[in-house]
C-alpha cells in the first residue's frame, strides 16, 4: 500500500456511510437529469446502481466525481459535508472513478498513466520508481497483474481496465466507482473483475457499480439502488430482491422481455459470405475469415463482446471497409475493394444498413431531418427534380410521412438531427433504411441508448421486415436482444465465428463460453 501519510482523517471517522447524497438535482437546459436524489452507501460494501440508459446514473456519478456541479443538494463523505467542485477534490476525498470509456494515454506506459497527476515532485524518476514498487504490492494484493512497462495501446481491454483501477488505488481511493465496467468484457473477464471488487470490499473499500445489467447486480452487489428517469425509485438489499422486481422498478411496469414473434419461414439464400477478411489501417487482421449464409425471412443474430470483429463485418458488408473473400448478394458477387465497393453500390444491390454508431455514421447531426432521410439515398430518382437539381419539397413531404409512420417526435422535418432524443434519432435511421424495402437489412446495436418504448417499436419493425420475407443480419452486444430476436445465432470471438446456435435450444452460459473464445469441443 502507498505509504504516504493520510491526513484527511477519513479512516478515523466512525460514520457508517462512506457516501451520503442528499437531495441532489441537476438539469441540463430543459432536461432534468437528476431529481432530488438521496442515497446512502455503507462503508465496506458493493453498492449497485441500476437503471435504463438515460436514467441519470452517469450524471449522478459525474457529480460525485466533480465533473458536473449539482444544482442543489449535499454530498457527505464519511459523514462530513464535502464540496466537490472538480476531480481534484474528488480524488482528495478518496474517490476513484473507472469510466466507461477509459481515460488512458494510449502511447504511455502503464506506469506513466498511473503516475500522471499523482507525481511526487517536479522530476519524474522518483515518482516512477515509487509507483513501480506500489504497483507491485497492489497487483499482489488484488489480483491486478499488469506489466508496468507495457504501452496501453498494446494491452487488452480487460487489462486497460485494471490500469484504471490501479490508478484509483494508487491515489489511495477508499471509494471506487465503476461506470458500466463490463460492457467491453467477456463473461470470464467480468467474473474476474467481480472477484477483484469483492477483494477490495473485503479490505474495507467501498465500491459503487453502475450497470444496466440485472445479472451483474444480482451476482456482485450487497445493496442496489434503482434509478428511473432521473429519480431514485428505491434501494434494496440484493439478497432480498429478484431480477423481476428490479426490472419492474427500472421501467415502472412489467417488461415484455420476450419479443412477440412467430416461427421463421426461411426461403432462398439472400446473402452468402465466404472467408471474409478485413484488415484495419495498421494492417492488423480484425476479421479473420468469416463464412455464413442468410436466407430470406430469417434473422441471423451475431453475438459477441464488443470489438471482436462485428463492426468490421458490418462495415465490410455495408461497403465502408475494404475486405477480401467472397460475398454474393442474391447470387451475384459484390465488390469488396476498390472504388466500386461503396455504400451506393451496396444500396443498389438491395442492402440497407442501420450502423452501430448512428451519431457518427448514420446521421449528420447538423443536417435537418429531411436531409438525413436522403442520406445514402440522395441519388434516388424520386428525390430529383431534374438532371441537375434535387427535389427538396418532395424530400420534405416524404420525411413527414416517414416520421408519422414511425412515430418520430417531434414530427418536424426541418428540425436538426441533433435536436432529437437518441430514440427518435434511431427511429429516423431505421425508418430511412427499412422503408427502402431492402432484401437485406444490416442492423448494428439497434437499441443502444434508446428508451424502452422505442426499443419495443424497433424490435417489432425488425420482426415485421423478416415476416415480409427479408433477410436480416443483427449485431448486438446485448445478449438478451440477440436471444429474443434471432432465428439463428452466430457467436464471434477474435474476428472468427465460434459457432452457430439455435436460440430455442441454447442458453446464456453456452453463448458466454463461446463469446470468451472457448471452442465447441471444450464447452
Amino acid at each position, binding site marked *: 500500500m502507498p505509504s504516504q501519510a493520510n491526513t484527511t482523517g477519513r479512516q478515523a471517522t466512525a460514520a457508517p456511510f462512506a457516501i451520503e447524497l442528499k437531495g441532489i438535482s441537476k438539469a441540463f437546459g430543459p432536461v432534468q437529469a437528476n431529481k432530488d436524489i438521496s442515497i446512502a452507501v455503507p462503508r465496506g460494501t458493493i453498492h449497485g446502481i441500476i437503471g435504463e440508459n438515460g436514467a441519470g446514473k452517469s450524471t449522478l456519478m459525474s457529480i460525485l466525481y466533480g465533473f458536473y456541479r449539482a444544482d442543489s443538494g449535499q454530498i457527505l463523505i464519511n459523514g462530513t459535508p464535502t464540496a466537490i467542485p472538480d476531480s481534484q477534490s474528488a480524488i482528495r476525498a478518496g474517490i476513484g472513478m473507472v469510466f466507461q470509456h477509459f481515460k488512458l494515454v494510449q502511447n504511455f506506459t502503464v506506469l506513466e498513466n498511473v503516475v500522471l497527476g499523482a507525481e511526487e515532485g517536479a522530476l519524474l524518476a522518483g515518482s516512477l520508481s515509487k509507483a513501480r514498487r506500489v504497483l507491485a504490492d497492489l497487483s499482489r494484493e488484488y489480483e491486478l497483474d499488469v506489466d508496468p512497462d507495457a504501452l496501453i495501446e498494446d494491452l487488452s481491454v480487460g487489462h486497460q481496465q485494471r490500469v484504471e483501477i490501479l490508478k484509483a488505488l494508487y491515489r489511495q481511493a477508499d471509494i471506487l466507482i465503476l461506470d458500466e465496467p463490463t460492457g467491453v468484457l467477456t463473461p470470464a473477464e467480468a467474473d474476474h473483475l467481480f472477484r477483484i471488487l469483492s477483494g477490495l470490499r473485503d479490505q474495507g473499500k467501498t465500491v459503487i457499480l453502475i450497470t444496466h445489467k440485472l445479472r451483474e447486480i444480482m451476482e456482485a452487489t450487497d445493496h442496489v439502488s434503482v434509478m428511473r428517469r432521473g429519480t431514485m425509485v428505491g434501494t434494496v438489499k440484493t439478497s432480498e430482491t429478484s431480477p423481476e422486481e428490479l426490472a419492474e422498478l427500472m421501467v415502472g411496469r412489467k417488461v415484455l422481455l420476450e419479443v412477440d414473434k412467430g416461427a421463421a419461414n426461411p426461403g432462398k439464400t439472400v446473402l452468402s459470405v465466404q472467408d471474409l477478411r478485413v484488415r484495419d489501417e495498421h494492417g492488423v487482421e480484425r476479421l479473420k475469415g468469416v463464412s455464413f449464409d442468410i436466407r430470406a425471412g430469417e434473422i441471423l443474430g451475431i453475438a459477441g463482446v464488443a470489438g471482436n470483429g462485428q463492426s468490421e463485418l458490418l462495415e465490410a458488408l455495408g461497403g465502408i471497409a475494404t475486405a477480401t473473400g467472397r460475398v454474393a448478394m442474391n447470387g451475384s458477387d459484390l465488390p469488396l475493394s476498390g472504388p466500386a465497393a461503396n*455504400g451506393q453500390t451496396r444500396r443498389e444491390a438491395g442492402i440497407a444498413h442501420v450502423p452501430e454508431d448512428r451519431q457518427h455514421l448514420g446521421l449528420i447531426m447538423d443536417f435537418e431531418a429531411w436531409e438525413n432521410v436522403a442520406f445514402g439515398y*440522395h441519388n434516388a430518382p424520386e428525390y430529383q427534380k431534374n438532371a441537375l437539381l434535387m427535389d427538396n419539397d418532395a424530400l420534405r413531404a416524404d420525411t413527414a410521412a416517414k416520421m408519422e409512420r414511425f412515430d418520430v417526435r417531434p414530427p418536424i422535418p426541418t428540425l436538426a438531427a441533433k435536436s432529437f432524443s437518441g430514440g427518435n434519432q434511431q427511429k429516423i435511421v431505421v425508418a430511412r433504411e427499412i422503408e427502402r424495402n431492402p432484401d437485406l437489412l444490416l442492423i448494428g446495436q439497434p437499441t443502444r441508448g434508446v428508451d424502452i418504448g422505442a426499443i419495443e417499436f424497433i424490435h417489432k419493425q425488425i420482426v415485421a421486415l423478416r415476416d415480409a420475407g427479408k433477410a436480416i443480419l443483427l449485431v448486438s452486444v446485448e445478449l438478451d436482444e440477440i436471444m429474443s430476436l434471432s432465428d439463428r445465432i452466430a457467436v464471434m470471438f477474435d474476428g472468427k465465428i465460434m459457432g452457430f446456435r439455435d436460440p430455442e435450444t441454447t442458453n446464456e452460459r453456452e453463448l458466454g463460453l463461446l463469446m470468451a473464445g472457448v471452442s465447441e469441443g471444450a464447452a
Partner: protein
Amino acid sequence: MDRLPKWADVVLVPLVSLILAAAISAIVIKAIGQSPSEALKVMVEGSLMSAYGWGYTLYYTTSFIFTGLAVTIAFHAGMFNIGGEGQAQIGGLGVALACLFIPWPHWSIALLAASLAAAAFGAVWAAVPAYLAAKRGSHIVITTIMFNYIAAALIVYLLVDVLRPAGQMDPATANFPAATDLPTLNQIPILNLFFEKKVPANITLFIALAAAWAVWLILWRTRLGYQLRAFGKSEAAARYAGINPTKMIMVSMILSGALAGLMSVNNVMGEAGRLLQNSSEGAGFIGIAVALMGRNHPVGVVLAAILFGFLYQGGAELGLWTSIPIELRIVVQGLVILFTGALDIMVRMMLVRIFALFHKAQVA
C-alpha cells in the same frame, strides 16, 4: 450553451464581430496618434460618397466575391483552402497566356477564353494539394500555404526569365492587345449615367455575382452540393452513405481553386492589362475574412465583399490623405477573421447573455 435565434446567429453574430473589430481598429488608430473619426470620414468619402469611389470599391468587391466564394465552397466540404492567393496568381498566369498569345477578335470571346483559362489554372494549382490531401493525407492548410510561396516563386521566375519582353526593365508581361480590354462600368449603357469617369470596376462584377448564385445553387440544390456538405460535416458518415471522399476533396478544391483563379480576370485582364508580380495583392487571403464574415453563404459573401471593398478603397484613401499606413487594412482583416472565425463562441456567449437579460426583463 443556450441557442440563439437563427436570425441572431445570421445577422447579429457577424455584426457584433464587425463592431468589435472596428472598435479595436479605432483604438489602434488612436494609439498611433491619429483620429479614428477623421479616418472613418476619409474612408467613407473616398469610397462611398462619389461614383468614382464606388468604381474602386466595386472593383475590389469583385475580386473579394471570387476569393470569398472560393473559401466558402471549400469550407462546406470541410477543407480550409488558405491557398486562394497562389491560385489567384496562377489564374492570372492563365489570363496572361490566353490574352497574349491568341489574337481575339472581340473582348467578349477573349473574356470567355480568359475566364476558362483563369479557372483552369487556379483549379490545377488547388488540385495538387487536394490530391496530396486525399491520397497522401497531407494537411491541406499547410500544403496550400506552401503552394502560395511556390506560386509566387514560379511567377517571379516566369516574369523575369520567360515572359518579360526584351528591353523591359520591370518584371511583367507585355501589355495585352487592345481587343482584350474589358468594358468598365462607365462604358456600360445605363450604368454610364452614374459612372461618368473611367473606373476600374468592370464587367467581371457581373460574372462574380453570377458565380455567387451558382455556388448557392450547387451547395443547396444539387446532389453534388448535398454530398459536399455531408462530407464536410462528417467524413465517416459520408463514407457510410457511399460518398467518395477522394472525389469530394478533389471536386471541392477544384471548384475553390477555379473561383480563386477567376478573380484574376478582374484585376489582370480588367484592370492592369498585363501580368505583374504579386498581382492578387492579398485578395486571396481576404477571401478568408469575407467567407467568415459572410457566414459561408453566398449572399453573406457578397455583402461582406462590399464591406471589404469599402475597407480596401477607404484604406487606400487613408494612405493618400492621412499618415495612417495602408497596412491598417490588414489589421482590420486580421481582427475580422479573429472575431468571426476564432472567437465566434465568445461573441455568441455575449449575445446569449444579452438575450437572457432581455428575457428576464420581459418576464419581470
